[in-house]
């Protein structure tokens, strides 16, 4: 018997590969429970009848104690009625005390339907997780990122959707001896009322930005499209990608797909350089998990400096060209 059972609802992409957010959640919960005796992390995989060995291996390395596979060809396509039935039945059987989903488009649609079916509470789009006395404390930004709220759920399972890329995937020194369990839920006769007609892929949906190691971002302070060309140059020199604040996107300087922040992309780069960005809370919410943040801004009171590891009070238009030539010098 385990005192603390956590069930993570895994998500697969169209090629039946695990999304990073599932591994991020496994890794984070493994870290949170490492000193809790009798804790158990289960990951639920829902998909067609194929071999899931490589997924199981990935999950062993990140800390899953058990992988529950419900494979049925009828589950190849996501259908909310069928997936809800699978998750709810497995939760009723396994009785986890904590239930987690990735806050992907699918997760944010499925989770509230599942938790309403189970009559339990749900915290949305969390950016922080903690376990205090075997209970979940989930943190999320509210009011456009201006305030963080820690949410406690008094019903079980305590449930949350967690934003992708806020946690890192840390492989354990030794993979866990993960148990693999097959289960099956009959969804053949489910009263399905939605039908998928067509899938339209859009590969350029700035996956680049979310996975980039280095991001150079600009705000209204970059003034024009030409200003962003300067950032392109710096990004090219560093091997990075260009992003933008909401204000810059609203002003038409960059496309919506480049927007970083609570209503745009969450980035988890090793280095984030914010140029001419004042640092509205909603922007900070999208960059806070970056390893190092550099800010360049003419206004010494700009809030962005509070969140920067290194800040330069100065004009990005003067500093960036000089920085590029210094970086080229070092490269040589």
């Amino acid at each position, binding site marked *: 018997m385990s005192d603390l059972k956590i069930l993570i609802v895994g998500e697969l992409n169209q090629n039946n590969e695990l999304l990073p957010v599932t591994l991020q959640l496994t890794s984070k919960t493994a870290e949170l429970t490492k000193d809790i005796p009798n804790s158990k992390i289960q990951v639920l995989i829902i998909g067609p009848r194929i071999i899931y060995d490589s997924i199981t291996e990935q999950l062993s390395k990140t800390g899953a104690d058990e992988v529950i596979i419900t494979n049925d060809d009828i589950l190849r396509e996501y259908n909310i009625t069928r997936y809800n039935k699978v998750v709810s039945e497995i939760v009723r059987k396994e009785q986890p005390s904590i239930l987690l989903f990735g806050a992907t*488009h699918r997760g*944010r*649609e499925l*989770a*509230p*339907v599942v938790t*309403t079916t189970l009559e339990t509470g749900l*915290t*949305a*789009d969390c950016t922080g997780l903690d376990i205090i006395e075997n209970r979940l*404390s989930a943190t999320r*930004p*509210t*009011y*456009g*990122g*201006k*305030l*963080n*709220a*820690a*949410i*406690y759920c*008094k019903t079980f399972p305590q449930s949350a959707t967690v934003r992708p890329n806020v946690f890192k995937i840390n492989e354990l020194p030794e993979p866990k001896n993960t148990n693999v369990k097959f289960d099956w839920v009959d969804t053949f006769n489910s009263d399905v*009322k*939605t*039908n998928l*007609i*067509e*899938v*339209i*892929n*859009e*590969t350029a*949906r700035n996956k680049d930005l979310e996975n980039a190691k280095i991001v150079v971002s600009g705000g209204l302070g970059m003034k024009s499209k030409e200003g962003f060309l300067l950032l392109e140059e710096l990004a090219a020199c*560093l091997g990075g990608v260009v992003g933008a604040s909401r204000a810059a996107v609203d002003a038409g300087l960059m496309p919506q797909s480049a927007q970083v922040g609570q209503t745009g992309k969450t980035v988890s780069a090793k*280095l984030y350089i914010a140029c001419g960005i004042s640092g509205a809370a909603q922007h*900070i919410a999208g960059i*806070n998990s970056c390893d*190092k*943040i*550099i800010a*360049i801004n003419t206004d010494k009171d700009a809030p962005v*400096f509070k*969140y*920067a*590891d*290194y*800040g*330069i*009070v*100065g*004009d990005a238009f*003067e*500093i960036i060209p*000089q*920085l590029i030539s*210094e970086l080229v*010098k*070092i490269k040589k």
Partner: protein
Amino acid sequence: MKITVCIKQVPDTNDITWNENNTLRREGAESIINPYDEYALETALRIKEQVGGKITVVSMGPKQAGDCLKEALAMGADRAFLLNDRYFSGADTSATSRTLYYAITSKLKDTELIICGQCATDGDTAQTGPSLAQRLNMPVVSFVKDVEEINEEYILIKKETDTGYERVKMQLPGVICVLKNDFEVRIPTISQRIDTADKDIEVLDAEMIGADADKTGFRGSPTNVSKTFRPAGRENSEIFVDKNAQEAAVILAEKINEMRL
């Protein structure tokens, strides 16, 4: 087509300020219709223009939320309900969806399509719509970018996914949660405002919608805020205020080099 649109009144996020104890300073903060809900109503109005029908807007909130419903009537909604009871306050998404469920099953039984905004700009949970659908035992499609076709039996939707779009056919009655669309939301004309100024907002309390008051509001909410705090800044920030461009560039180049990227 009988359409119900769920509307939330939210503070204008752009002018939010905080009290010392991290509670919202309500004085001076302008309240607006949640921008996603404006698109929900605009979507409903376009469907009505196309296939005919009747639009009812529903909001749960304090008396002042009636202002948003007035605005919705001026935009072209036919009827407005305000769910207002002291028991309803402090609700999380679960209790909110339950209260809406009581209202719809008691007053709007013949609803064929429910439209919600994808999320509200204050809470940004995106949970109330799908949760409501499940309580009503209706199907739901969220992240809806466009309604392509609608008739008495089904609705054909283009929805956003993590990797692009999907086209989904949903049987009615059902619930859709809409994103902002490419179209503009209409602004009522002065004469539309005058014409609808006297229209009644029907105020409903727990008893009138047959709600078990203990299952609504704070008491009916499984989740509570246990504490609030401002996002933390970085420790050991090094801010250089008086370097010229050349000096600044040298410092940054060194720091970046040390990161060994």
